């Protein structure tokens, strides 16, 4: 019968429990993956309602593509393109049934006295002006609104109203049955597609992107036409292809680099395999923590939590290098039966367990602060990291010592010789520690004064789309006239309340005369407004305001009983397409996805012509049921919030680390230990700013990794001094981290590049500076230098 080590049994028991716990929460909880950054923002109930409203109004826009064709052969080119596009399985050509003016006029007939254009409204008591308004419409060469309404509404209030309201939207003309726009005397034919691409299917996005672009290019070549195209899918496909390329190229290079490193130092791939196992267990622990404490995992949590890899790899290298039994005699064969374990190896407490534990506790203390962050994302990162690090630590300290392979891992002599050289130069540095620290402090403070760290959280700066796509977007915005527009979202519990609130908003916005407001308010006014206009017409009619105008044409126009145009009437008419474009129902309940059970209404209105002035912006901010739809702005704003919180929490983590170092190593060593950490952070940020021009949250994110690695490095140097094996383990950790993360500095994706560059600078800085924190006294240095030279 085999004897099993109690520690090993305990390890597997706790591993099993953790995994069971994870599976239990995963299966029993309503657990899901979240990708919407805005959903993680701390916010009021109003924000939640508005977020839901925006989602309901604009949920389909990411599936849309618009293509404009221009040139002499544009019409046959358009027809050929449509034919090819319609053959694609994931493409649906958008078609609209446009109601005719006669149909529109007929629809408004029962409500003819409920509508006053601004001109009629302002002059409703002035018989002369009203007569002029009637006459001026009658003499227009071709006014189809007059022709279609004069028979039942000869006051022409309805003709003027519809003409004004519909003229607001008018830009698209149908030529040869094709929608088109005329811009600077040039005609552009517009095709609109809806893509049936499943949520996160990047492969499908890429596929449909290639198909659509191929058709566009073919049409361009065959018919010599210019094309302009716009759609999220083009950007998504480019970004995902770029990411795939970078993952495969950087990933391969990193992997080759790490393999070469490990083979060179250990002449074995076993460390790589053991590290992979340890990392996998650490990630499982992290995910278990998430499913225990949260009902959702945000994808961004994983992005932040990539730091786990760097730290756990660091733990592994310390295990492989510092615990080599040939050197330290930690593992010795013993005959004593009571000390025999399954693999016949007796495992002594490792010399690295203490610094590993200390490093773990310090890092966990830092992350613990994040747990109480008001931002769910940072809380998730904290839980993931704390659990992940625990899993990594337990595996490195409890499992790896029992793995037989570990005993086979030998550090190559050249590596040890190199480590001794490193030790030698580090000792020389330590001799001049004061001078180096003083010099660095002066340089760092000086550079901070000359070029203070400045952050820019504008999410648009993180856009990595190629110039061609951006130019296409800008041109399409110009063609369809939405280059400077803003959308305002309004919410309410009832449709009447919604329409009234919209009218209040428009009334406020109209105080800025340059604004052009497009909305459904004109075609579907609130019943309150309809009633008011009806009363005005009725009263004016009684006073004889319309008499002269009507007498001129020999017609009479009686004011009928009031009948309100309702939302229900509107949605059951041929104008329903406009209703569904502007207004939708939504539910604030997470699980309620059916529109039929939705309990809230929302609509949007389009504002262009000028930027909203301060008064309008202030007014909108004060409205709890309205918001300017600005996703980029909201994301930027949320990034600012995250960055500020991350900054404070990093500062708190520095203080905690300092306290731990003070308590553990005293004031002097505490300060000496903290300085490399702080200096590395500042140097990496300053250099990143110098090369990037500005900093973002992704640079701060890199500090999380640098801080965690720096704590480990400093604690190992504090505990073991400048021992060659400590130097070697730290060197391996630094090189592998630089290979895995630092390589990201060459990414063409701005966010990834920012992260990679700061990590690269940070790792170089902490690798050089951390030895300065070692506990060597001058006398030790003097005695060790000649020795190390031998």
């Amino acid at each position: 019968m085999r004897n099993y080590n109690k520690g090993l049994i305990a390890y597997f028991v706790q591993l099993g429990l953790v995994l069971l716990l994870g599976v239990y929460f995963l299966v029993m909880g309503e657990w899901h993956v979240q990708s919407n950054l805005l959903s993680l923002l701390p916010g009021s109930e109003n924000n939640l309602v508005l977020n839901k409203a925006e989602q309901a109004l604009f949920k389909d826009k990411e599936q849309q593509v618009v293509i404009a064709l221009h040139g002499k052969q544009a019409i046959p080119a358009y027809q050929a393109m449509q034919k090819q596009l319609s053959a694609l399985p994931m493409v649906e050509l958008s078609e609209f049934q446009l109601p005719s003016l006669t149909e529109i006029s007929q629809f408004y007939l029962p409500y003819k006295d409920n509508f006053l254009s601004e001109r009629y409204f302002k002059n409703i008591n002035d018989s002369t002006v009203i007569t002029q308004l009637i006459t001026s419409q009658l003499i227009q060469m071709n006014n189809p609104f007059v022709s279609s309404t004069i028979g039942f509404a000869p006051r022409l209030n309805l003709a003027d109203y519809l003409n004004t309201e519909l003229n607001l939207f008018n830009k698209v003309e149908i030529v040869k049955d094709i929608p088109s726009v005329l811009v600077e005397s040039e005609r552009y034919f517009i095709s609109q597609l809806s893509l049936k691409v499943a949520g996160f299917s990047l492969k499908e996005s890429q596929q449909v992107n290639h198909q659509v672009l191929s058709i566009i290019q073919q049409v361009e070549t065959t018919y010599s036409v210019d094309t302009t195209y716009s759609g999220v899918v083009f950007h998504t496909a480019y970004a995902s292809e770029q990411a795939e390329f970078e993952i495969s190229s950087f990933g391969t290079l990193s992997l080759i680099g790490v393999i070469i490193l490990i083979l060179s130092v250990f002449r074995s791939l076993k460390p790589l395999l053991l590290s992979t196992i340890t990392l996998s267990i650490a990630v499982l622990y992290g995910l278990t923590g998430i499913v225990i404490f949260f009902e959702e995992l945000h994808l961004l949590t994983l992005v932040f939590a990539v730091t786990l890899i760097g730290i756990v790899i660091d733990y592994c290298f310390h295990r492989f290098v510092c615990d080599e039994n040939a050197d330290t005699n930690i593992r010795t064969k013993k005959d004593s039966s009571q000390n025999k374990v399954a693999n016949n190896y007796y495992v002594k407490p490792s010399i690295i367990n203490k610094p590993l534990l200390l490093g773990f506790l310090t890092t966990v203390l830092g992350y613990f602060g994040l747990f109480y962050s008001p931002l769910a994302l940072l809380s998730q990162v904290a839980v993931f990291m704390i659990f992940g690090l625990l899993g990594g630590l337990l595996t490195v300290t409890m499992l790896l010592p029992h793995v037989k392979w570990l005993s086979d891992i030998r550090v190559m002599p050249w590596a040890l010789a190199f480590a001794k050289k490193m030790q030698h130069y580090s000792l020389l540095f330590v001799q001049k520690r004061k001078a180096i620290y003083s010099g660095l402090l002066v340089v760092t403070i000086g550079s901070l004064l000359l070029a203070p760290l400045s952050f820019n959280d504008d999410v648009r700066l993180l856009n990595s789309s190629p110039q061609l796509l951006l130019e296409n977007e800008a041109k399409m915005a110009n063609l369809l006239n939405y280059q400077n527009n803003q959308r305002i979202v309004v919410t309410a519990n009832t449709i009447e309340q919604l329409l009234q609130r919209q009218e209040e908003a428009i009334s406020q916005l109209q105080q800025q005369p340059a604004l052009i407001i497009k909305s459904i308010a004109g075609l579907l006014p609130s019943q309150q407004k309809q009633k008011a206009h009806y009363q005005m017409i009725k009263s004016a009619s009684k006073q004889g305001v319309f008499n002269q105008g009507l007498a001129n044409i020999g017609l009479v126009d009686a004011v009928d009983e009031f009948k309100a145009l309702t939302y229900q009437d509107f949605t059951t008419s041929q104008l329903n397409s406009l209703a569904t474009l502007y207004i939708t129902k939504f539910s604030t309940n997470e699980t309620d996805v059916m529109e039929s059970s939705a309990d809230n209404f929302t609509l949007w209105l389009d504002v262009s012509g000028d930027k909203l002035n301060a008064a309008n912006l202030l007014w909108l901010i004060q409205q709890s049921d309205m918001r300017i739809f600005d996703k980029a702005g909201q994301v930027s704003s949320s990034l600012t919030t995250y960055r500020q919180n991350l900054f404070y929490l990093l500062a708190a983590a520095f203080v905690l680390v300092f306290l731990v170092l003070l308590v553990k190593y005293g004031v002097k060593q505490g300060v000496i230990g903290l300085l490399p950490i702080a200096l590395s952070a500042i140097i990496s940020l300053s250099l990143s700013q110098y090369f990037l021009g500005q900093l973002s949250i992704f640079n701060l994110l890199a500090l999380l990794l640098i801080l965690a690695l720096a704590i480990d490095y400093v604690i190992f140097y504090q505990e073991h001094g400048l021992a060659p094996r400590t130097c070697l383990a730290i060197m391996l950790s630094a090189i592998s981290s630089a290979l895995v993360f630092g390589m990201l500095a060459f990414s063409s994706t701005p966010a990834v590049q920012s992260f990679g560059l700061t990590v690269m600078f940070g790792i170089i800085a902490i690798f050089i500076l951390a030895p300065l924190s070692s506990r060597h006294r001058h006398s030790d240095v003097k005695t060790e230098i000649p020795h190390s030279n031998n």
Partner: protein
Amino acid sequence: MQVSAGFLGFILLFIAINSTDATAIENDDIEKNSIESIEIPTANISLELLKQLTSLPLAQGTFEQRKYFTILKQPIVSTGEVYLDQALGFVWQTHHPLSSVLRLKKSVLYMQDAVSPEREVKGAGTITQVLMNALSGNVSALENEFNFQPSKQKACISLIPKENLLANVMKAIDLCMVDNKLKSIILFEHSGNRTEIDINLSALTKLPEAISAQLQ
């Protein structure tokens, strides 16, 4: 990424109804059938007649417009002046019974009347451009938009719109000539309403400064 506004902006514009897109008429098919039944020689004769129309790249004149609504017993009469420059556009100034101005500039139509300041009339560029081509005798441009056939009225040619954009707005346009000069334009709407415009145009070498400035 700026994509976001794109689709919604487009839909908004697209669904929004064009004032010139206007009236869908049940008679369309009948009209189209009658167009198709026109014998080619007749169309050619009409085209040849129209080609005799004097081209007026720069012109000035007066007009009298009579709008006949089926519901009204009397036409609505208005008079005024017109200035045109085939390269720039035209100014259509009504003086009686009310002052108003229609200005076509770079394919965009602007309108001003006694009550309201000048405003852009969106989507009306095409129909107004047709009027401009008729006034200036730009037959080749008209040929792109219309089929030609003899009118019931003497010395007139009927222009039948080829495309829905125009066909939705009008049933036909009659151009009537005297001595190869355009004398009147009659716009027939599907509803039975019609607009008759008697026009007296003279060629110019240069537009008045004030008018020219309005078209720049």
